[in-house]
């Protein structure tokens, strides 16, 4: 088990390294010189040159990379070209916003998907089961931002029940925080719950045909009780995997939702920074997203090893 965890850790480090190189490289081939953009439309060539020197974008690429990378390791993302302030505290601030949004969305998606998925599996050859499957198919087809726009036009613009956009930190005014987060969380959770429902359904269906369930039923348990007592733990493993993958996807998907709902999270920060060619900020935000994704995968891999005796055994 320890060997497996060590392997996971090693893979984490290598992927992170490769990601820093890729992100750095991609940012350098984007068209648009950051110094020229910062200098604006009234700039003289001398001014652009001076800003390039100040930003350090005129230095050799390996040097720029090393400065940024060594800073990352120290948790110091550097000073933004455009805002002229430290990037780290700002990213930390925005990361919290995005994580709150995404975590609540994932919880809501699971709350909807787990019972629905189990129900769809148990009633897989009844009309109600087919209905749930059909609805989840439909849910997958509706993009989150579209659902968001629909929610806004109906619930806030037509009915005036909830604010159309904006963000209040939970510590500042909890009631307002909840009112503002309902719509973006619902928009994000909509597609996720549909996806997860299908996974839960197929995972449960699969275990229902396993020998141990037949054994349990032979011992006198009803199909539902057998499933609840012995099946769900096994069905949980594929669902856990999918949930973690989807969690990472959700963080990326939140970029669009954050824009629709004017939520000041990483996504909004990223879009603004890309537009301004604020290279250091873009690199840092992307690396934070990469790190979150990698950490989730690492945690899941480790959990997996702990949870599933077969995987544990295979490594011994």
């Amino acid at each position, binding site marked *: 088990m320890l060997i497996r965890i060590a392997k996971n850790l090693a893979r984490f480090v290598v992927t992170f390294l490769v990601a820093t190189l890729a992100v750095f490289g991609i940012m350098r081939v984007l*068209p648009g010189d950051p110094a*020229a953009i910062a200098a604006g439309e009234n700039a003289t060539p001398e001014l652009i040159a001076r800003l390039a020197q100040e930003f350090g974008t005129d230095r050799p690429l390996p040097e720029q990379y090393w400065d940024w990378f060594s800073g990352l390791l120290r948790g110091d993302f550097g000073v933004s070209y455009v805002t*002229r302030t430290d990037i780290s505290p700002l990213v930390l601030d925005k990361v919290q916003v995005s994580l709150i949004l995404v975590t609540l969305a994932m*919880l809501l998606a699971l709350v909807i998907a787990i019972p629905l998925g189990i129900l769809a599996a148990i009633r897989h050859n009844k009309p109600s089961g087919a209905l749930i499957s059909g609805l989840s198919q439909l849910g997958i087809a509706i993009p989150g931002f579209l659902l968001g726009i629909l929610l806004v036009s109906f619930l806030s613009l037509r009915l*005036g029940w909830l604010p*159309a*956009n904006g963000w209040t930190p939970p510590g500042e005014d909890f009631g307002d925080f909840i009112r503002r987060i309902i719509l973006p969380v619902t928009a994000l959770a909509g597609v996720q719950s549909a996806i997860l429902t299908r996974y839960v359904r197929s995972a449960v269906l699969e275990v229902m045909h396993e020998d141990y369930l037949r054994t349990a039923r032979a011992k006198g348990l009803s199909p539902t009780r057998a499933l609840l007592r012995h099946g769900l733990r096994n069905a949980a493993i594929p669902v856990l995997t999918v949930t973690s993958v989807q969690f990472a996807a959700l963080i990326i998907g939140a970029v669009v939702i954050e824009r629709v709902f*004017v939520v*000041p999270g990483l996504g909004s920060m990223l879009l603004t920074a890309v537009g301004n060619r604020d290279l250091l900020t873009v690199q840092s935000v992307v690396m934070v997203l990469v790190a979150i994704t990698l950490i989730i995968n690492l945690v899941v891999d480790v959990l997996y090893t702990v949870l599933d005796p077969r995987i544990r055994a295979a490594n011994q």
Partner: protein
Amino acid sequence: MQRSTTSRRAGVLGALMVSTILALTGCTAGSTGTPGSATDKNTLTVALTGEPVNLDFTTTAGAAIPQAMMSNVYEGLVTLDQTGAIKPLLATGWETSADNKSYTFTLQEGVKFSNGADFDAEDVKFSIERVKSDAWLNGLKTKMDVVDNVQVVSPETVTVNLKRPSQAWLYSMTTLVGAMFDPSGVDDLANQPVGTGPYALESWARGESIKLAGRDDYWGIMPGIKNVTLRYFADAIATTNALTSGDVDLVYNMQAPELLAGFQSKPEYQVIEGTSNGEIMLSMNNNVAPFNDKRVRQAVMYAIDRQEVRDTAWNGLGTLVGGPVPPTDPYYEDLNDLYPHDPAKARELLKEAGAENLDVTFTVPTRPYANAVAEVVFSQLKDVGINVKIQSAEFPAVWLDQVFNRHDYQMSVVLAVEARDVLTMFDNPDYYIGYDNSKIKDEAALADESDTANYVAGMKNVVRTIVEDAASDTLFIFPNISVAKAGLSGIGANSVTEALSLATIAWS
């Protein structure tokens, strides 16, 4: 053992679900009213698009910083009124010397900066000299090149000596280059602006909002609303959504005219349409084929029906002027008749130039106005035999790089927002438009050095020459549209300076 772990996990999960559901349903039930419907007479929330990246316009270009900071936090010696006339502000008045080279300003007394420091003639000297120093990085600093030196006569009197007479200089003093700073308040302008204005920065949540608080020690008329929040949105739809759901009171400089209809018909809102300094400029690269041929440029001028462009692309809002000067400038004149819509004449000119069946690449920045305009231009030019290929350029990054800096384009369209920018655009052959300025250079210089009457006459001639040469096609003057709750008054309709002046706004 195994069973107990499972049930404990299930218990935790169950508790989580229940609490989430409770939290979500509980608050839906609690919020039945329209959000933010209660109007507090002492607060105002303004929706804007395009947020400032930092608060320091001395080192950073762009319209968003002066929009929030000028008039509100910073003030100049002079300012513009809504008709575009120069009025005293921190100066009570000024006298010009006989040779028009020196301006002696008398200063308001009892003016304090928001850090408590007194404002006097030394601050004027400091501020103007600083524009000329390396501390300023904004390209607009060149407007101060004409200043030779600044003399402090007394704490309330200061004389600015110019190298040569300049009508344009005093006007520039109404813009951000004329902002007055305190020497001890310039350490962290990006985050902590210090000015003499009616408001001081209270807090700034990056990417979200700027909060301004009215100053109790302000020297002039107290602001009508004490607590103002400027909220920034990514697009126009988000701003009007926020207005509809009651989160904001005013949407200023609205960027989507098609959203106006819904507000015009409702009594709880007011729509204010004014004019701005911005020209929607269809630029033709005067240095490259086919637009290095004046006849081809003229053909485009005749081919384009500017009224149809404006009506289709911008819902009929905006002013048709026919030249690169907004109506609020002193040397404005209506030049719509110089190139009336005449497709036959356009075809004739193209034939004469040997440019029939022309292929042109149209580089369009990714901005709503540009996309809207591009489609109409496309079909109008096609009508006279110019085949337009639309190429999209991300704005600002790619557009600035490709079109503005490298001049790698044939035709483009952009909103030129800078005030009194006709000479910036056309009196510089190295500018991206590439207009040969030999015909206007001397006349423009002469006009700037003469008295006001001759300045206006001279500049009118300059502008006429530029338009006759078909240097670019000014499609229309961008409107300044505000949508506000009905109870708000004192919103300046016209955007004649870069500033959104907040102090005059009040709840009635």
